[in-house]
């Protein structure tokens, strides 16, 4: 467990930098986490992905399949990688305040 601080944001994260208390997530947190994953500016497209991930996680308790993410947001796979250079698991899920995905990632 570690404390992640950037500007006014101060949150508990795990050793890989993922949020520990997803209920404390807000837009400022998302922006701060984005800066650690090569996303300096959260555009509308970023928010579309982040909001979908967050809603899905709150509903089902896991990260969605990339298939669902692309289908629901209308983005192509390569666009997701353009938006989040470290990918959907380590990049987008982290920004959306999800805990670290399980398994070999």
């Amino acid at each position, binding site marked *: 467990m570690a404390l992640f601080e950037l500007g006014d944001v101060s949150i508990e994260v795990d*050793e890989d930098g993922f949020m520990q208390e997803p209920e404390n997530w807000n837009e400022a947190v998302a922006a701060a986490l984005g800066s650690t994953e090569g996303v300096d500016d959260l555009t509308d497209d970023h928010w579309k992905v982040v909001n979908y991930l967050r809603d899905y996680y709150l509903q089902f308790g896991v990260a969605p*399949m990339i298939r669902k993410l692309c289908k629901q947001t209308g983005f192509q796979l390569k666009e997701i990688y353009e938006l989040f250079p470290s990918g959907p*698991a380590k990049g987008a899920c982290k920004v959306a305040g999800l805990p670290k995905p399980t*398994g*070999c990632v």
Partner: protein
Amino acid sequence: MANQAKTHKIKMMEEQLAKKLNRQVVGSLVGCVHCGMCDESCHYVLAFPDDHKMTPSYKADQVRKLFKANHDWTGSVFPWWVGADKVPLSDDDLETLKDIAFGTCTNCRRCTLSCPMGVDTATLNRIMRGLLSHVGVMPEGVRVVSKDQWEIGNQMGVLKEDYIDTIEWMSEELEEDLGHAEATIPMEKKGAKIMYCINPREVKYDPRTIKEAALIFWAAGEDWTMPDEGWDNTNFGLFSGDDGLGGACAKREYEKARELGVDKIVISECGHGFRSTRFEGVNWAGESEPVPMESSVMTMLNYVREGKIKVDPTKNPEKMTFHDSCNNARSGGFFEEPRELLNLVAMDFQEMYPNRAEGFCCTGGGGAMSMSEYTPRRLESAKIKADQIRATGAKVVVTSCHNCVDGLNDLIKHYKLDCEVKQLVNLVANALVLDEVEKPVEEVAVPEEITVKPVAEAEPLAGRKILVVDDEEDVRTFLITVFEDAGAEVISAADGNEAIAMAREHLPDLISLDLSMPGKDGVETFVELRSTAETEEIPVCVVTGHPEFRQVIYDRPVPPPEGYLGKPVDEDKLVAYASHILEHRNEKAN
């Protein structure tokens, strides 16, 4: 004395240990003399040199103490000397053991190589993990994944309909990209030759590798399929030490392969998946006649070797280095094949040192990627690997393991290296030349004999001059005949000195070189050819009865040979190899 105070869990662990003892394990338990020779082989020791708890022997001693106390006479006679009086007693001790077994060792097996007694410390560490898992003590990340593998059948809990939906998605995209109705991903095709198994991260988060593999299979005209179950090649049984889970995971693949009636299972580029499915799983699952299995690296390499796919290495021009997955290389003996493929599909390959069996772990092995609690220590131990990657100056680190991809990406970010990670499937797909590939005919069974490219239909080596070097007359005659039948003009030499003289005089287009020869052997001859201005550019295909010499020749400080074939040589393969090398040469020259 101590027995009185032992908790139930510890007694269970001791009982379990008794079941794990066999000759190899006992050899490793009694063989250690604590000489310290393994210390510097461990990336944890290098990062924390003053912490004796990082040494491989300290980690292995945790199991050793239990063994000495319960099974070895030394533990009864002088327990204080062999640590038998310091066995764990309370359940709190188990938490400490958990941190040692899961948090200070990636089971990479590098220390084993430096042990004069042949102690396999990683095996002992895995046994400790297994004893702990047996009583429910393991990191949360390992527990969650193990549960998903037991219950849902894959490590990321991907449901069957989601898996199929994703494969269909990639299939549709491939069809669209290529504009061929036949370019699809076959699902559950009975009697296909190949069943392709993947790492769940491919389907859950990054299916681009599935599409790339499908593209390569399609281009090669392969008769392949993906299964709807038993598709997960990964295995947390290897990481948790639970042989039961290990066997259950592997068995799903084996049984599916039998149900579909495929010739072989091809395992996508996953190091621990390859080791677990190809080697360990067979024992864990008690398979007596396992289905043949191979890494997709071998499959792709054979496609290029046999001319089934055409690749253009200029598509991958960046400077690249190769990182050996510990499970593929050190534990699987898979050293040269990925390098051979890499050299065929990329322009600029720079070896990283040390490499092959001596390579360091990406530090994400042994399931470490799923245990965040140990990430800071893991990243600190990754310094040695980061330094080695930086020293190559490469812009791309190529590896044949999904776990290494993530481990390397983490250390690249942490140490701010200027490079990215790719897998061979990415490079092969990128280098594919499609316009000259014939469309495969679906649903038509192709007889085995004609899947190998026919040799005699044309003279593929017409106009080429080939120098055959071999000290055995009958081998020389065979090689000469095969090359001549394929249209080449052939000259020959029976030893190294003669070969060098003839190479200088005739400047052949290709040299076929034996390694084991009296006098100047093939390795010396090769180095001399490569170090001499007139002959350095002549491609060399090694043809040898000693595959173990590969390492020797690839370790020379000169560019590696363009091909490497083991005897006995199949004549179709020889011609396919030779024509491929010559075409490849022309492409590089252009």
